[in-house]
Each structure stands twice: as C-alpha cells, then as structure tokens.
C-alpha cells in the first residue's frame, strides 16, 4: 500500500531563517506531488505541483521554492522566512493521470510558526 511521510510535524523558525520541509511517498512510482498551504481558518492554497523529477510548477509567486530530486521525494524550501509564511503545510500525492481524476492523498502536515 502507498504511504506518504512528511516531516517535521511542527517547526518554529525565526524570521529570515531558511526552511526545508521534506515529503516522501512509498509504494507507488511516478506520482504527481503537491505542496499546499493552509493559513489559520483558511482554505487550501496550492503552492507547487510536480508531474516528474525536476518538473516543478509554481502557482503562487513567493519566497518559497520546491524541488523534486527523486521520483518520490518533494522538498519545500525558503532561503529567508517571512512572518506571512506561517501556516499548515501539506504535501500530497496522486496517481499520475491525465485528466486528474484521482484522489489526493495528504501527508499529516507541518505546522510552521515564524516568529
């Protein structure tokens, strides 16, 4: 069966510090991978998605970046965090399929607080 791991679960970082969140998927190959952010009491905002190694699409201009160095690994990074980067970050995967009519499977999320 497929599983998704996301870490760390919680993170408190000062403004201006770097960020690295990691997500890995097991039990499937060539998944679509996604990073979503959820601000307190808000909806799910798509940040990045990837359909393959090295292929990253950004949905929102910001100081965050994403990379996919391996088929089942997705990393969210920042060189300098802003207060507005605080939120609940969710990694998700889906079967690589066109059209996209397969479920999104979410990781447990990382709660990031920028102080």
């Amino acid at each position, binding site marked *: 069966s497929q599983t998704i791991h996301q870490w760390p679960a919680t993170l408190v970082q000062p403004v201006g510090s770097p960020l690295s969140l990691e997500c890995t998927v097991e039990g499937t190959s060539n998944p*679509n991978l*996604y990073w*979503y952010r959820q601000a307190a009491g*808000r*909806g*799910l*905002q*798509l940040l990045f*998605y990837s*359909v393959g190694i090295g292929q990253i*699409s950004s*949905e929102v201009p910001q100081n965050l970046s994403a990379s996919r160095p391996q088929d089942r690994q997705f990393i969210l990074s920042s060189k300098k965090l802003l207060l507005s980067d605080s939120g609940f970050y*969710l990694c998700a995967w889906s079967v690589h399929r*066109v*059209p*996209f*009519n*397969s*479920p*999104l*499977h*979410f*990781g*447990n*999320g990382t709660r990031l607080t920028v102080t």
Partner: protein
Amino acid sequence: QQPVQSPQAVILREGEDAVINCSSSKALYSVHWYRQKHGEAPVFLMILLKGGEQKGHEKISASFNEKKQQSSLYLTASQLSYSGTYFCGTEMTYNSGAGSYQLTFGKGTKLSVIP
C-alpha cells in the same frame, strides 16, 4: 479560479440533514470532496466527473451538475463524527476538453454536529 462554497458554517443536531454547495465560474472536469478534522490532514470523500453523476458513501452523497458548474454534498442523518471542515476541489476543463493536473480548493464549510 477558486470555487465558492456555501454556507461558510453550519451547526446541526445529530440526525439532521445538511447540504453544502460548491460552484465555479469555469467549466469543470471533476469535483472532489474532502473532510478535514481540526489539526489533521484532509481526507478524501469522493470524486464526481463531468456527466452529471451522483455518488454516495453511507449517508454522505454528492451530485455534480456540469452545465451549472455546481456540485452539492448531502449529509443525511448527521452523526457527531461528521463534524469538520468540508472542502470542494475543482479541476477545470481546458479548451481541448482535457482536464488539468491540479485541484483548486474552496475556502471550506465548517460543519458542527452537536448532540
């Protein structure tokens, strides 16, 4: 284009019914429904594809009206476990008729079921 969900919040007593609506200004290929408990990751409920289908899962069902670009989630005889925030995610249709690789989520509907 973010879909619009209504109502924003609803409070039910156990056993009551509720309807959550999701509408888009764009042509849709599919609509997804997810439920998120407080502090947890969203969990997939169901997908509806264009064609006006209706699906059900126990006492939770949904419909998708492609022409109206709307979907509705029906919760009947609500249980305490139904409490959470419900999100619809929409996949748009390109001019070619194909779907996209991404979901855009609404802001969510907070459902509270009380004894």
